[in-house]
């Protein structure tokens, strides 16, 4: 029967390992599943450490069955990402609870690997990479001490030595193993950071803006203007009932652009995991360079926004271009009808206001200016939590509370403009960005979530041509919100008040030392995260193919990659075995020392014959060098004793050093003789 570790240190290590792998899944798995698993683990731990009665197999089975029943009740399946994670968590706890032999501990270890993979599914940052590297050391150490013969002890040196051997193969696998062009699964309930819904309603954008997490990062390939002009288009909404807006009919025709800007600026976006299919693009997107996403197709929608054909899988990146000018386009009758649609129950006071503001009918620019002036003069306020509105939401906001978030202003502005007879629509996305100089990129957070209006300004009534002009009433009501972006919601910004001259630089200069340091650390970590994210998202099958083509492979199919991978691994195995063999051939240190001893006398004309044993040779030397006879005898006797008489003696470092010292002493004596 194989022996296995039962000692206390091993058990505590195993307990700690399992608990660690359960804790990392706290954000992903319901607490009750974790609690059940941890309960079993702790019970086993108390049994091992305190000697109290441990969980019996029957009890484990009952708890396990109850847990599985509860999972099925909650998820109606055992398959899928979340249900699968819960099952794994339960299995890990139950398996440790019944672990009694080597095989059980081995299976527990394998479950830890599976738990780690579940954790990595939901988290791909730099910290996750760091945890992965640390965890590999812990798990390999466990494999060492789990060894059936029990000869291995806790040895970080041995683990690191093994990992050093493993590193070339690991790198080979990572860089050469072909990636699937398309991920065939998608996250059911990813830990998303961007959470726009398909419609705009009071509170929907505010909900997104409550989070400070990063929505996406951008790298511009050319210098650009101030972040106040960063409007990131997500989706365009056309159907309304007042404060609630929905997307237009997907089959609505795309805009007919008549002229395009000559100046197009390229940029690349790295999007964090999100559940909606929109791609965010900087106003005004260039429809000639629509974004391309590896493994997914992109469709353009009416309103010049882009949508993925399939739900996105994790992080991904895309490139596109933008121009600062809104392109000239023609407006069809159907589009005009869609963008003039008003709610059937529009309040009369709103209609009256619209008439009052439309001082020059047909002149959209004047109407916009009048509307902005009205909002500026009225005592409107901007708030993330404006409170709920009653039945007549629009008129209540415009004439009553005058307190709202961007969705209120955008909805009200669009309705007013439509009531005046100008085609208008609501755009939801993000506004602003923070620069991270450490990585030369910009960051857009969820706090930058925003909604604004676009109104069609006719320039040629004959041919129904014009352009869509942005109208942002929040910029009118709270200009500092545009300047500070996400920082507007911080406590430090609120202390500075609603000063018109406030800029991001001014805000940052007012930060305390601790806040400044924290900001610097945050930017540094994010820059590291960005580098990692860039590498992780861009290293796909297309990247591999390009790499292979660069080194001369015309056919860059998966078969070629696999062939290359296994050839490289076979080569590594051969080289490794040869290196080990060469190390072995270097020979015994004892024989080397004897050889060194024999070489001392070559210059004195005495050479050891191949057949000459140590006694014979030393006998000859004693005759030739009688003054050194004692030293020669000592050395020969030590060698014979270590080599022949005690085959199971440990040729220790001390013995090695002692023999070496004797040889060195003799060497010095012989040198003196020669001199």
């Amino acid at each position, binding site marked *: 029967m194989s022996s296995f570790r039962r000692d206390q240190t091993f058990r505590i290590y195993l307990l700690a390992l399992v608990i660690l792998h359960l804790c990392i899944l706290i954000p992903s798995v319901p607490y009750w599943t974790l609690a059940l698993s941890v309960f079993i683990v702790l019970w086993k731990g108390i049994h091992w450490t305190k000697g109290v009665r441990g969980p019996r197999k029957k009890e484990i089975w009952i708890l396990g069955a109850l847990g599985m029943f509860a999972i099925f009740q909650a998820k109606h399946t055992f398959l899928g990402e979340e249900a699968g994670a819960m099952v794994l968590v339960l299995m890990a706890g139950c398996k440790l609870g019944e672990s009694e032999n080597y095989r059980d501990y081995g299976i527990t270890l394998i479950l830890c690997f599976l738990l780690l993979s579940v954790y990595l599914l939901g988290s791909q940052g730099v910290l996750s990479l760091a945890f*992965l590297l640390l965890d590999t050391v812990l798990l390999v150490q466990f494999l060492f001490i789990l060894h*059936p013969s029990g000869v291995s002890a806790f040895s970080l040196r041995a683990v690191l030595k093994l990992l050093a051997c493993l590193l070339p193969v690991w790198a080979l696998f990572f860089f050469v193993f072909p990636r699937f062009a398309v991920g065939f699964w998608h996250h059911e309930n990813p830990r998303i950071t961007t959470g726009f819904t398909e419609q705009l309603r009071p509170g929907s954008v505010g909900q997104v803006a409550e989070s400070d997490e990063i929505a996406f990062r951008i790298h511009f390939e050319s210098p650009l203007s101030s972040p106040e002009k960063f409007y990131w288009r997500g989706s365009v909404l056309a159907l309304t009932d007042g404060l609630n807006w929905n997307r237009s009919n997907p089959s609505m025709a795309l805009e007919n652009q008549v002229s395009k800007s000559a100046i197009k600026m390229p940029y690349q976006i790295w999007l964090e995991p999100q559940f909606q299919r929109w791609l965010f693009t900087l106003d005004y997107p260039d429809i000639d360079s629509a974004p391309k996403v590896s493994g997914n197709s992109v469709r353009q929608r009416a309103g010049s926004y882009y949508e993925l054909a399939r739900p996105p899988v994790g992080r991904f990146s895309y490139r596109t271009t933008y121009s600062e000018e809104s392109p000239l386009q023609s407006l069809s009758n159907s589009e005009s009808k869609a963008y003039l649609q008003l709610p059937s129950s529009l309040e009369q006071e709103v209609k009256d206001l619209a008439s009052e503001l439309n001082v020059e009918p047909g002149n959209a620019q004047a109407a916009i200016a009048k509307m902005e002036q009205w909002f500026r003069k009225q005592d409107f306020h901007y708030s993330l939590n404006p409170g709920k509105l009653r039945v007549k939401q629009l008129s209540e906001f415009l004439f009553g509370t005058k307190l709202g978030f961007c969705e209120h202003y955008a909805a009200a502005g669009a309705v007013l403009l439509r009531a005046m007879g100008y085609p208008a629509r609501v755009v939801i996305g993000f506004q602003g960005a923070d620069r991270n100089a450490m990585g030369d990129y910009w960051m857009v957070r969820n706090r930058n979530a925003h909604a604004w209006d676009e109104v069609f300004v006719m320039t040629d009534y004959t041919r129904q041509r014009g352009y869509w002009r942005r109208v942002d009433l929040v910029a009118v009501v709270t200009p500092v919100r545009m300047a500070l972006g996400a920082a507007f919601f911080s406590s430090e910004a609120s202390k500075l008040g609603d000063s018109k001259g406030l800029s991001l630089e001014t805000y940052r200069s007012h930060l305390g030392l601790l806040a400044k340091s924290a900001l610097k650390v945050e930017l540094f970590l994010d820059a590291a995260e960005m580098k990692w994210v860039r590498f992780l998202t861009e290293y796909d099958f297309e990247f591999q193919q390009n790499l292979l083509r660069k080194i001369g492979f015309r056919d860059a199919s998966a078969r070629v990659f696999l062939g290359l991978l296994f050839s490289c691994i076979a080569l590594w195995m051969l080289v490794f075995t040869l290196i080990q063999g060469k190390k072995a051939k270097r020979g015994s240190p004892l024989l080397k020392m004897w050889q060194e001893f024999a070489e001392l006398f070559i210059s004195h004309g005495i050479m050891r014959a191949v057949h000459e044993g140590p006694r014979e040779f030393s006998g000859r030397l004693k005759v030739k060098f009688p003054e050194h006879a004692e030293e020669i005898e000592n050395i020969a006797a030590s060698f014979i004793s270590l080599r022949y008489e005690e085959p199971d003696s440990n040729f220790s470092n001390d013995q090695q050093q002692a023999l070496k010292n004797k040889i060195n002493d003799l060497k010095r004596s012989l040198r003196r003789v020669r001199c």
Partner: protein
Amino acid sequence: MFQWIQLKPGQVYIIPTRVGAYFIATSLIILLIGSGYSNNLVNLLAFFMLSLVFVAMVLTHLQLKCLDVESIEATPAFSGEVQTFHLIIRNDSAEECAGIKGKCILKDMKKRSPLPQMLDGRLLAHHRNRVKWVEPAGKRGRYFIEKIELETVFPLGLFYAWKIAKVKSECWVYPKLSGNLKLPFPQGEGEFVSTLQSSHRQGDEFHGHRDYRAGDSARHIDWKAHARGRALLVKEMDEGSSPELFLSLELLAQSGLSKEDCISQLTVWVNEACQQELSFKLVLPHHEVLQGRGMAHARRCFEKLSCFQEEP
């Protein structure tokens, strides 16, 4: 008697252990998950596990590759007593080998059933490692140590590697030392002529080896055998004197003892005669008559007694 063995390295075989098989399956599952979700970090974990499999396979293989079984000897023992086995394994690698297990497979000439023995050890680098173990000596007879199997799952327990070294070494189990009868001296019961002579026999004919005892002259040590790695042995020469004792199985059987008891009794007598340095003749039915004195003669007698089977 032990035999000097020189063996060529055998083939190393390797297969995954049960835990290793689970590990490989899990790594493939994780790879599928990583590919399915296009998650490079999960792929990284899967690749780590697969690389660990490859490295573990190579390291486990290398554990045995550099090991050579140099010699195996079994000290003859009487049945019911303890028999000592000495195995010398040479480790030619630059690394210490740990977690090596082994089996010594004995083959009975008549029964042909293996008797597995177990050993456990840590083998030093560039060293001839002696592994010693004891086993209770079973039934009398001449056994052959058929092969030595070395096996290991070191370092990670993911792969099981083994290597077979075929050997030809004898393992003698002499008959049990049991019997109360006194030596059958020709001059009467209880009397014996003390022939205290020097422990060394001066004669022309080489009689055999015996173990070196303190006080033996260095001139009679077999240095050539020692240079071949054996223990210190002293050469014995045959004196050729006439036997003093006559030990016969047929005569002993007439006293009513069973065959095995007779053999055991004869063994006791041979042992006593050897210790008293008496000359004696052993007669077994259908076997040659053995006569002589000293350890070598006693050994031949023990061997005959061990293998003695009544011919039908």
